[in-house]
């Protein structure tokens, strides 16, 4: 019975899909009419461009198995998608439903990481929320203030100049760089990719990694909660001396170094042993941030940023 129902659901899902591509809405018709198809320089390479009119706080998602996705702000309430298709083994499906635009690279039989590759450049209103998926990447988003979700497996991920937004990143082993994220709600999960945060602050900044190194350069500002944790990666935080934070750091088997004087805190949850752990406050304790640095096998280093920088 269960299998039968599954089958029925699949058939229905297939129906829905054909509906999506065959029965185009009025809006989609317009989009196709505006869509420009330019023959590329290579015989098999082609460029496509799609325009969508959206309202404020639009949602834009791009699913692209192979290839890059760059997202930048557009000037007005439009979403402009430029796609370079590397062969005719891949197609671009696009769909607008109200304030949401979904773009998906559709691999045809026989497509591989070369022939199935599509490189996207996407312009979105700065307040749009953006979801990007690519296995190989790279993924890049900049100058936005809507939520940003990026997922890749080997993709390198780069987010810069984002404010007042959730930034969620998941990757298997691609390197992650976040640059200038203000008032963010940041969650980065990386199995083995290196994570570098520069000028990132907000109410929550959390990095969880299994074996990737984590590098934080900033001031632990905004009275936020900062958790940088790895199993076997090293954690290094470079902060100005005036930083105001409640810091606890522990490496179970590695080493812990701090260049910055801390007021020790004794009511802590782990035994303080010099070299493997420290806990304490720095700066004005009031209105400070909470910082947790934790690794099992890696080294932790809390560095003082030279003010010349």
């Amino acid at each position: 019975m269960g299998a039968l129902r599954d089958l029925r659901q699949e058939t229905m899902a297939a129906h829905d899909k054909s509906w999506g591509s065959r029965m185009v809405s009025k809006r989609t018709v317009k989009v196709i009419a505006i869509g420009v198809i330019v023959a590329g320089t290579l015989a098999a390479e082609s460029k496509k461009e799609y325009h969508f009119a959206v309202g404020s706080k639009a949602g834009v998602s791009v699913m692209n198995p192979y290839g890059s996705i760059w997202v930048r702000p557009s000037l007005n309430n439009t979403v402009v998608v430029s796609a370079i298709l590397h062969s005719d083994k891949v197609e671009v499906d696009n769909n607008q439903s109200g304030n949401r635009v979904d773009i998906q690279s559709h691999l045809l039989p026989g497509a591989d990481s070369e022939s199935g590759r599509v490189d996207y450049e996407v312009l979105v209103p700065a307040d749009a929320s953006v979801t990007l998926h690519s296995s190989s990447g790279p993924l890049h988003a900049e100058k936005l203030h809507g939520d940003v979700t990026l997922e890749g497996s080997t993709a390198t991920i780069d987010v810069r100049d984002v404010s007042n937004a959730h930034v969620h990143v998941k990757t298997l082993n691609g390197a992650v760089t976040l640059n200038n994220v203000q008032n963010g709600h940041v969650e980065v999960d990386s199995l083995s990719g290196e994570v570098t945060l520069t000028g990132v602050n907000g109410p929550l900044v959390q990095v969880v990694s299994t074996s990737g190194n984590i590098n934080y350069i900033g001031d632990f500002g905004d009275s936020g909660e900062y958790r940088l944790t790895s199993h076997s990666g090293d954690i290094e935080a470079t902060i100005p001396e005036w930083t105001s934070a409640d810091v606890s750091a522990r490496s179970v088997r590695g080493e812990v170094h701090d260049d910055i004087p801390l007021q020790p805190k004794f009511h802590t949850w782990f035994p303080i042993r010099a070299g493997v752990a420290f806990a304490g406050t720095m700066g004005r304790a009031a209105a400070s941030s909470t910082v947790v640095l934790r690794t099992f096998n890696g080294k932790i280093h809390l560095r003082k940023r030279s003010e010349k920088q």
Partner: protein
Amino acid sequence: MNCIELEESLVESEDGSSREQRAHLSACPACSGLVEELRSIIATAVELRGSAEPSPQVWNSIEMVLRQEGLIRPQPTPRPALSSFSARWGWARWLAPAAAAVLLSAGILLYRASVADKLAQQVSVAAPALDAGMDDNDFLQEIAAQSPQLRPVYEDNLRRANEYIRDAQSAVNEDPNDAEAARSLMDAYQQKAMLFNIAMDRSLP
């Protein structure tokens, strides 16, 4: 009954089966055409029931709220997977329960982490729940079958994630009151669940 009266009469008697309706319909092809067309609209309407599928984000948000509100709670004993767990594409059908099992374990920990004195129990709960749902070798074999070139990457990450779980677990064993250790164990499970999720993600070739 004339044509206008017939149309009005359909409000009360939609199938045109009353005696007066039948009398008119038998003599009027236009009106019997109308009744036939309405009938066909009504018959097709039922097919719209349950005909659309919500995006996976809907469940994700629901689950998040359920956890936040404490409606999802830890389970006393691990349960076998319920039968109608559905996944939409290919071999991911098999993976979905596995990833869910990992997340379930993580969820158990998340909840327990707030109750320090029960931390000791959680480890014994989490481990069998995890074992019931998944097998790492099956997982790797599926990866190899789907995309052989990715196998080493997944194998390496899986091994590291398992080490993470092991280390975090012994940290919890050492000091059941260590909230940060419990947190690490949850993180470790989530890393492993993420590995499974990335594998079944639709953007994966």
